[in-house]
């Protein structure tokens, strides 16, 4: 397979196998749009439908959980108990449309527009730091628009992945393996995004961006010694951060609180402790959707956003939790497979970035609700309530689909 790939020249996808791609389907005006999409080589036929179904399942589950998490409190407050349900449905619908639309786009377009996406994401992140940003719970992570607000750090992940993939796939070296110079460029490009997000401060997203960048560089094919060297630098930086007290007090507290949750129940340990109780009390089969009394009593903070997994824990039990983890696992494995079968270096790197993003973020998010990871503000992909997160997740799936359609035929 690698022979076939190499013979075709993975850097620039061209030609022979790409006759009636998405553009072709849209270009064929004689047939209706839908008919051509479902035609033998129509783009819908070429999509990874397992991924679509799993993603859809996760989004549906997430919507149910958001509904269940918010319904009792809204009802008790005398408000419309479907407020969050309706909004989440809207977000998922918008996300689905965007996902299908992006799936139809030629992946080369992404590469072309990667700098644009990057610059827009960077500007948005920087805008958050200006007075435009909306301060919520100690972090300035949102930009307020009339009627809705946007969380730029979600889109920073997309910007970083696209930009890094672009920089690491445009190597000029003879082996087509990116060198230290390419890695350095990628790090330089990513730095303002990461630092900007860190300034918000959004520690969780900062960690995701850093890990995604590191793994993308590693997978890009640079020499192993550079990988190890970069790892050493990262470790040194980590040490310096802790030794020089660069982290804010509350960040340290939150990072270490999970190690001894019962010590500080009034403060940082509370969230973790309540989350653990909620998940633990679910038992094997859970108490059933809308029947979680702990969730119904609003004991877990942010239970429809960052702590959505506690709802699954209490109401769906171990079985439901494992189903969710498996579905997330399928998304991650499909993403890695799409990376492995990608037509070119850029597609491979984008898919890898998305896979690492989902994997790391899911692990940290679920881990913090069950007391094995520190509590950092991160949504659970596809499940947490929030328009920006859902949209970013769906865009990422759209990218994966587009890359998938341009996979190597030898796969």
């Amino acid at each position, binding site marked *: 397979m*690698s022979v076939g790939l*190499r013979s075709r020249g993975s850097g620039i996808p061209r030609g022979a196998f790409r006759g009636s791609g998405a553009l072709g389907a849209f270009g064929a005006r004689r047939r209706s749009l839908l008919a051509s999409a479902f035609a033998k080589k129509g783009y819908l036929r070429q999509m990874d439908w397992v991924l679509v179904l799993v993603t859809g399942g996760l989004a549906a589950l997430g919507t149910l959980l958001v509904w269940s998490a918010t319904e009792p409190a809204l009802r008790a407050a005398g408000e419309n108990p479907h407020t969050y349900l309706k909004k989440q449905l809207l977000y998922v619908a918008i996300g689905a449309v965007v996902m299908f639309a992006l799936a139809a786009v030629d992946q080369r377009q992404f590469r072309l527009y990667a700098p644009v996406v990057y610059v827009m994401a960077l500007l948005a992140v920087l805008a958050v730091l200006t007075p435009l940003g909306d301060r919520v719970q100690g972090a300035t992570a949102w930009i307020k628009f009339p009627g809705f607000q946007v969380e730029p750090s979600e889109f920073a992940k997309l910007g970083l992945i696209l930009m890094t993939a672009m920089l690491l796939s445009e190597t000029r070296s003879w082996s087509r393996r990116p060198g230290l110079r390419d890695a350095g460029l990628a790090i330089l490009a990513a730095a303002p995004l990461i630092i900007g997000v860190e300034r918000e401060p959004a520690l969780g997203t900062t960690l995701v961006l850093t890990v995604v960048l590191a793994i993308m560089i590693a997978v890009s094919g640079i020499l192993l010694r550079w990988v190890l060297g970069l790892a050493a630098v990262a470790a040194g930086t980590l040490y310096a951060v802790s030794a020089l007290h660069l982290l804010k007090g509350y960040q340290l507290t939150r990072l270490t609180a999970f190690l001894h949750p019962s010590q500080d129940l009034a403060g940082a340990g509370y969230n973790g402790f309540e989350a653990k109780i909620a*998940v633990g009390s679910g038992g*094997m089969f859970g108490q059933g959707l809308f029947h979680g009394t*702990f969730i119904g*009593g609003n004991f877990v903070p942010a239970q429809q956003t960052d702590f959505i997994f506690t709802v699954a824990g209490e109401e769906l*039990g171990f079985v439901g*939790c494992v189903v969710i983890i498996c579905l997330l696992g399928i998304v991650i494995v499909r993403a*890695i497979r799409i990376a492995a079968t990608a037509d070119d270096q850029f597609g491979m790197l984008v898919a890898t970035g998305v896979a690492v993003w989902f*994997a790391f973020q899911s692990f940290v998010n679920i881990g913090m609700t069950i007391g094995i990871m520190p509590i950092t503000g991160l949504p659970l992909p596809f499940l947490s309530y929030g328009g920006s997160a859902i949209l970013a997740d769906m865009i990422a799936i759209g990218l994966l689909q587009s890359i998938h359609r341009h996979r190597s035929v030898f796969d």
Partner: protein
Amino acid sequence: MIAVSRRRLVVLYLPVAAMLITLGGRLWYLQVMNGTAYKQLASASQTRNIVVPAVRGQIYDDVGNQLVRNRTALVVSVNMMLLSQQSDGGVAELHRLAPLLGMTYKELNEKVRLCTASVPAPCWSGSPYQPIPVDQHVSDQVALQVMEEPKLFPGVTAQVQPVVEYPGPDGADPAQVLGYLQPITPREIQQRHLQVTGFSGVDLVGQAGLEARYDSQLRGKPGTQVVSVNAAGDVTGTVGQAAATPGDELITSLNSGVQAIAQQALASAIQRSRAAGNRVNQGAAVVMTTTGRVVAMASYPGYNPNIWTNGITEKQFSYLFGTGAGTPVMNWTTQGQYPPGSTWKVTSTAAAVASGYGINGTYDCPASVTINGQRFINDGQPSQGPMTFSQALIQSCDTVYYNLAYNMWQQDNYPANFVASRNAPLQKMQKMELAWGFGQSTGIDLPEESLGSVPTRQWLYWLWKDNAHTGQNWCKYGRQNGSYVQRIEWQDCQTGYVWEPGQAVIAAIGQGYVTVTPLQLANAYAALANGGTLYSPRVGEALVSPSGGVLQRINPTVIRHLPVSSYTLAYIRSALAGVVTQGTAAGAFAGFPLNKVCVAGKTGTAQIFGKNATSVFASFAPCDHPRYVVVVMVPNSGFGADTAAPAVRAIWDGIYGLEGHKAALPGGQFPSSLPKVTR
């Protein structure tokens, strides 16, 4: 794609698999292995035990009229702290609420505005942080409307709360006997080992009177309610409950009719005395059966017990507890300590007879007696020559008793009169007075009771020791060459322990150091009337369960039998019947149909230096088989025949219905059986 990328992608599966397995393993540990423990933790933080206060028992009179009514009512309260935070200060919300409660906005606003110097009543005088009850009697419908629309009525609550009412049947208002309820203090909770209910203002505890004495029975047993709560502590539902046991009902022997008459009679007697120029501001009337059951207790001034509900104002508080208006909160029937005056002569007579003075002998009644150079007059009466005890009582001759007391002082352990000793032997006369229940608690079922004072030698020793050596008065203010009072004080400082003959003789006519409570006097006369059994009186008659079953009968207990022969007692009784027909009370009872109900009694007029006399009348009826005792004591009001005796006459009239009053106890029959009361 380059090969190295592919290899490294394959490696990427490893951490992903590790992560997924870690999550799954941890979930297994949390949910399956420790699920039960976490379930317990979850339910512990989701439920609260609420103590549900029991409905307090009610207090009834002898025929089942409610004197205290306790019920629960839906009370709508407004939290002005929350309303004032609204942009318009809650004006719009009050406008919405007012028509719901059937009030105008103005009326509602007057209830919730806080009293300040510039705000005239009506206004809220309680704490501004406390929800202000604006309607105590809302219907379920109104309450539901308020609770179902928290958006329309933020800060307004409708809660079931206990409401205390005092129906005052027949105009009876024995406020001081009933006592009052107040929110329990943390100290009281600790002292009584009570559960905290968590509802402020619900933990009411009896603070005086019957409410305090029978608090443990009246309050019932609180129940518990297990409710589910959310993280904010809001109740979301009921998980389980153990119902509260309502308090027992207390039936008293108080008769509303007699009570009302006693109050009126006392009040009008005091009005009359005031009109005559006396500065009277308190008084007491006691009506009891000769078997120790209290039928009426009137303490003047009275007050409306409803002022205790909904928070008492500072003005009301200082009225109740201040001396200006006669301290209405005090039950003067048990807390007033007044000189008994000549009503005391019955014990002096009994003591003299017991000491060997012949009951059928005659005793001289001169105009005055000089003892130790001090002249004691018979209230300005001329010399009346020798007379019997009966005549001495009827005419209330003081000098007869002066002589008796002086003789006894000389013969009764004479040397002990001059020795300061805590173990000094009791004088025979004072010993007799103690035996009649004076100088000690009657043991009535009311928490507040004064003891009065009987000047025994021991009592005098302690009085002197406290005053002369550790106290303030005698030695501090006494002057050897000062005013009359200062000279006495100086003398008392030196020799206050000496039982002087002058003190002995005025003690024999119920003055000097002698004080009694109206209840003690009534109780002693009851013993005299019933043939010598001294009871510990009771106001309570029975405790019955809310369903009407009798749980406990409350009966007056026998303290002792008077150390007086029944012949002597009968002799004194017939003498007291003469007081009313031909003696000092003949004027006050002129025209009273004594042929229908024979009333016997004794007047008392106790002089106090620098004050008007205390007017006393103690009586019982019917003369031959006494059923009731009526005592009225009014300090600072003049002659017993002028103020107290007419009040007593009005009370007898009210009991039997002889002179225009409707008979409160027709035929003088006290209800023989308990009234049926059920909630």
